[in-house]
């Protein structure tokens, strides 16, 4: 079945069953491999994208459910929060292997959009859905604060 998707502002026609997870449509059909697979059951956050501005786990989002909505992936996320996050991530060398970081960045951007100056608690709550096995949490926390304009010390 043909589905029209708007991804990073561009329209795409894809042939896929509507219950196919968006994740695999992004990765396999469209070659947008920045969005990662980590668990497939909404536990790790590696696949996080934004749908109409709201963070969404692409591994459990049927592609049919996002037709007609604005999907933004790590390749396309932009704006002041995204810029600040990318800059802080780079400056503080947050990523190690980087595999979880697309998802971390998408969650951090969403967090900052609704909490421009997040507290430690806000960071715990907003980022609890993203696993990093390299355990870069110390730096993620620091970088979110820096991106919020509250660099430590």
């Amino acid at each position, binding site marked *: 079945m043909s589905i029209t998707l708007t991804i990073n502002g561009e329209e795409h026609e894809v042939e896929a069953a509507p219950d196919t*997870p968006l994740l695999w449509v992004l990765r396999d059909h469209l070659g947008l491999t920045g969005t990662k697979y980590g668990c497939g059951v909404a536990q790790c956050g590696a696949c996080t994208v934004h749908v109409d501005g709201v963070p969404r786990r692409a591994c459990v989002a049927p592609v049919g459910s996002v037709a007609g909505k604005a999907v933004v992936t790590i390749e396309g996320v932009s704006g002041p929060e995204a810029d600040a996050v990318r800059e802080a991530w780079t400056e503080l060398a947050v990523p190690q292997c980087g595999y979880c970081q697309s998802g971390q960045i998408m969650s951090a951007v969403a967090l900052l959009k609704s909490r421009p100056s997040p507290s430690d608690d806000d960071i715990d709550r907003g980022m609890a859905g993203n696993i990093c096995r390299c355990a870069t949490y110390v730096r993620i926390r620091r970088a979110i604060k820096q991106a919020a304009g509250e660099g430590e010390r």
Partner: protein
Amino acid sequence: MSRWLPCALLMLAIGCDDCGEDEPEPVADPLPGTAGLRSVADFADIADEEARSVALFEEMGKVLTHPRCVNCHPIGERPLQRAGEPHQPHVVRGEDGHGAPGLPCASCHGESHFRTVPGNPEWHLAPAEMAWEGKSLAAICGQIQDPERNGGKDMEALLEHMESDALVAYGWDPPEHLEPAPGSQALFGQLARQWAATGAHCPPEPTGDVEGPAEASEDEVSPEAGEASAPTEKAE
């Protein structure tokens, strides 16, 4: 059966002209008992009205205290999942019951179930004042009739809500791997209506204080989740 109260709030706001002050009518055509929930008819021979009312509420309690209902009326700010384990990942109610900034419920819970992840367009958590995790049936009974703690509903609004709310309906229609609440929503609605018609009496407090579990702390390392989980069950 979870998360019905806030929705009722919404209904009140938009259509409360119908919320009559009349006494609830007794149920005329009792549905048969099903799936672990008894029929209104099964209580007809309890002569004493108050005792009948209490018995009806105790039957409703099978639904109210079922994990499909309690999991989203947690005493702390973190919902439970599956058979009543703390939700993994650690998610919270947030300001409007829809989760935390950066991690709203809708990140994972879509408009409909996706395999093991439950979905509903209204998916969210009951407000803190409507928590009844760990409370006695007597306490819950008092609480749901108290507009201060039920989202400002009068009895009719409460009953309509139990009978017909779409998110309440989730309780009987979860993803396959989760046990549905007993009975059906229609049957539950009848029990509630009959309970109201018989005076909406509450069971007595059980002897000995029943305390809810301690408030779940936010930053604990050890949310007791992942424990006692059946290997076949996926994340709710």
